[in-house]
């Protein structure tokens, strides 16, 4: 090749090469004039559906302070005002919400009509958002600040339900094209999405006219890093200020003062197959419960980043411990005498196979013969729901999507439940859960139902997990909540 052509070739190649790298999305130099620095955050779950608020990506939007709903969850798990300043129940199917003065990030005002449009779109989304499963409602504007919501059947937890991130309120612009919702610049939170780089990074700027006041950080640069070790490394090399969901195995490699453990509503349990196989026998279920030493799991596998299992609800559900009643009617433990059982679990959460191996030893000491089956979650679930295994070790968020304590009981432990891994079908349990679902005194009724379920020994609560967030030394005001719905707020800065 003639020598003088080489620079030309290099010039021609440069854009090609640049195309082979991911765009960083980082604007490190763009710190604002008033002294604040942009936050750099590493999140664990990349957006799966283009940040659509109707799927799991809604949590990302809510954690970054982009979207808000009419209500939020407070520390005790009760509904707190957000875009709605107050609400009242008019009759058992109708609720009236009074909006506060707020603006969308595109400059338009949050009007009752806009809120009704947003909620109607969510109600019509397919598949239905998780918080709305099995619920039908209509939302209508009423006056200059009111929204009236009517449900088809009585729903005592509607305000809780509206705190679900998938019921975020977006301006009319977001719903422009058919079946695609665009949260860029159309939400109401303190931070505004400005750039979305596929599933690798997003950039956010402060929204100055936020109703709750101006956020301290001028913006956020978010990277999605799926590998837990890589997130920990990013924090250690000061590439990020906040890293969510650090695996237990990596926590010890971080500085002590950067590790923040928050109790979550996630409970890891051993679910025993009550329909088929060895654990059809309640006496053997009781034997399994007595064989399990939960504190060995909390200390030995979770290195102390978990609390020993107390019930279906853990310490993060603050009201649960005070209202817990002793399970009644438990069977007397029988003798396993070499009964063969298979325990299934998944490796998407790295601790679970370890938990299963410790369980294996504990149960074998009690006289069971245990085989393990470890797979990737989506390859395991349908077999588990079909009752192909004798026992299942899994982690489950006990307040599922709505913050309503009864939801998890109904789906996991009743005859008609959609996620009934214990294949439990017990009239007393069904009755107790149905009673809890119909009352506003849900907390007491939920605890009564919990006692009823624990009495069957269909589930052995193992540990209540704590989620580990890596918080850089200079960061103040990170919002670490047990519901994993917030992370960055107006007071977060570095």
């Amino acid at each position, binding site marked *: 090749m003639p020598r003088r052509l080489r620079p030309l070739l290099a010039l021609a190649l440069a854009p090609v*090469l640049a*195309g*082979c*790298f*991911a*765009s*960083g999305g980082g604007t490190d130099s763009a710190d604002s004039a008033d002294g604040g620095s942009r936050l750099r955050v590493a999140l664990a779950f990349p*957006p*799966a*559906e*283009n940040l659509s608020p109707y*799927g*799991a990506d809604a949590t990302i939007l809510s954690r970054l302070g982009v979207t808000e709903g009419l209500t939020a969850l407070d520390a005790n798990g009760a509904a707190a005002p957000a875009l709605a300043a107050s609400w009242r129940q008019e009759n058992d199917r109708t609720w009236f919400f009074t909006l506060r003065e707020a603006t969308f990030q595109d400059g338009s005002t949050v009007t009752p009509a806009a809120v009704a449009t947003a909620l109607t779109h969510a109600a019509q989304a*397919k*598949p*239905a958002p*998780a918080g709305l*499963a099995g619920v039908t409602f209509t939302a209508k504007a009423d006056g200059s600040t009111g929204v009236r919501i009517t449900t088809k059947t009585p729903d005592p937890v509607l305000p809780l339900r509206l705190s679900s991130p998938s019921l975020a309120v977006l301006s009319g612009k977001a719903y422009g094209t058919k079946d*695609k919702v665009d949260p860029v610049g159309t939400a109401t939170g303190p931070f505004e999405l400005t750039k979305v780089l596929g*599933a690798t990074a997003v950039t956010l700027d402060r929204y100055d006219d936020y109703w709750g006041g101006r956020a301290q950080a001028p913006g956020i640069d978010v*990277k999605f*890093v*799926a*590998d837990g*070790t*890589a997130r920990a*490394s*990013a924090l*250690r*090399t000061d*590439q990020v200020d906040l890293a969510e969901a650090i*695996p237990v*195995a990596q926590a*010890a*490699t971080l500085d002590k003062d950067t590790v923040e453990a928050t109790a979550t509503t996630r409970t890891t349990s051993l679910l025993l197959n009550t329909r088929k196989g060895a654990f059809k026998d309640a006496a053997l279920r009781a034997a399994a419960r007595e064989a399990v030493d939960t504190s060995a799991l909390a200390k*030995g*596998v979770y290195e102390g980043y978990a609390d020993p299992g107390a019930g279906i609800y853990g310490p993060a559900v603050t009201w649960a411990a005070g209202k817990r009643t002793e399970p009644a009617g438990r069977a007397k433990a029988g003798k396993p005498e070499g009964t063969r059982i298979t325990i299934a679990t998944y*490796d998407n959460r*790295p601790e679970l*196979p*370890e938990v299963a*191996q*410790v369980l294996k*030893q504990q149960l074998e000491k009690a006289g069971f013969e245990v*085989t*393990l*089956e*470890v*797979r*990737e*979650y*989506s*390859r*395991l*679930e*349908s077999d588990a*729901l079909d009752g192909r295994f004798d026992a299942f070790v899994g982690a489950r968020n006990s307040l*599922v*999507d709505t913050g309503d304590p009864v939801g998890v009981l109904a789906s996991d432990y009743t005859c008609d439940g*959609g996620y009934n891994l214990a294949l439990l079908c017990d009239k007393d349990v069904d009755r107790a859960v149905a009673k809890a679902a119909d009352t506003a005194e849900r907390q007491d009724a939920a605890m009564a139902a919990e006692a009823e379920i624990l009495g069957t020994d269909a589930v052995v609560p193992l540990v209540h997990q704590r989620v580990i967030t890596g918080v850089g030394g200079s960061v103040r005001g990170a919002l670490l909540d047990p519901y994993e719905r917030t992370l960055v707020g107006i007071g977060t800065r570095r």
Partner: protein
Amino acid sequence: MRHQTVTLLWRAGIAAALVCAIGVLPWLTHTDPALTVLKARSAERDPTPEVLADIRAQLGLDRGPFHLLGDWLGGLWHGDAGRSWISGNEVAPAVLQAVGVSLMLMAVALAVAALTAALICARTLWLGAHRRLDGRRAGGSGSAVLAALPEFLTASVLATVVGVQLGWLPALGWYGPQWTILPALALGLPAGAVLGRLLDDLLPGAFAEPWALAATARGLPGRTVACQALRRCLPGLLPNTGLFVVGLTGGSVTVEQIFDIPGLGRTTLQAALAQDLPVLQAGTLALVLLAAVAAGVAHVLTRLLIGPALRDGELSSLHRPAPPARTILPFVHAGLLLTVIVCGLPRDPLALDTAERLAAPSPSHPFGTDALGRDVLARVAHGALDTLLLALAITAATLLTGLALGLLPRLSGPLVDTVTALPPVLVALLVTAVVGSGTATPALAVAAVAWAPLAAHTSALLQQERAALHLTATRALGAGPWYLLRHELLPAVVPPVTRHALLRLPGIALALASLAFLGLGAQPPSPEWGLLLAENQPYAERAPWAVLAPAAVLALLGALAVTAAGGVRGARRRRGGSETAARSMPEEQSPVRQLVKQ
């Protein structure tokens, strides 16, 4: 020309069959795509019948696989590769972006590999150029160990030590040239070590050929002779280098995960698990195309380098001037391995004690303990028998298949590239679809890939052998094709390919473990070696011994296979003269390249 058209058609046929097989995969394995797509979108969502029905309606799953496949192929004709089932985004731009990233990584890794190989061969080249090769001692055990290291171990060590603790280079992301260095080192170092070792084995043969002697006698500078020797040996390595390029573009998932690189390996893995068929089909097509291009380039380069000699049958056999001295090395390796196993067998590999987790090596636990407080020495020893027996059985099977198919290069060539290019998880899913998930499935899934490099090796040897002078002579004496095959070709080809197969034994053990997460193969708490490596990987920084012990025994096994194979070479050498059995032709890319890829 006709041959080339047939090959091209065959290649296109394989690609079409693959795409169709992927299109009906969920229906063959009875795994509902609505469920896997739901879980990929939102892991915590309960799979209620309403939700699944909505997803089926959204994706049009009810119309059946053939409609979907037809629509996708129809769109492809217009350059539209469909939309991802998970995100609803267009597939073509996303896959192209991932291909770009993977190719970039590949190119830098190739450069690293070339540099590594050059360093390994430098001594031989220098000695050869000065004609002082005769007395050299057999070297290369360092490069053999480097070659046998599991990829994820190199990657973890580089990321932790260079990236995090020393902070010299960025260890996370893919934002510019300096981000390419560490991952390229992790991929390129072992590959370069293998290629370098193979080249180093070939070079003495080239220097011993008559032309080299003549050139030196004529007074040509040593540098020129060395260059020509290199040119003489490179064609033997080209097919391996091609396979290396192809295999790592779609299969370097581990490295992509550790360094957080948005490459094709991760994209196709995610698509395979979620059964996101449009993405999986497009990714597979891209990989198959790349394999064809790589094979074509290797072919053209071989022609350029030694084409006329191949055509006219004017090659002399590459053989060593003197057999390498027999050493006690294999006995040392075997002795060490046996010692470890004998010491560990009386211990209990399953007894766990979480109070003793991650304990450093001590008199009571000579190799330390793992994350559940189990004795690593006991686990390594107890895992040996299972691991070795199964790996040996698979090796024997792949050796036979590889030899048989390697004899038919026109048939197997495109098949080899394609199989190497496919992500191992996809191969495992396809095998499961065909034979169901029985106890033999993981072995079959591994064997379905492992025969390919052996076949490529066989073909490469045959091509050179057929062009050798002594074969022309035998033919002139009236030997028929069967005689040639039995008495000339097979004796020349079988020993090096056998050695090569042995070299891949550790890699097969690792590949078996990498399928465990599909519910295939060994399940915890089995102490199978691949599983040991995988379960201790997250603790590599805090308890290096728990990873190093199984990695070391695997490396020892690799070294044993290599050195013992040297012994085989000595024993087999029975025909005199310009004989062929003493060849040490392309040993192929690393056994460990097959590793995990997870």
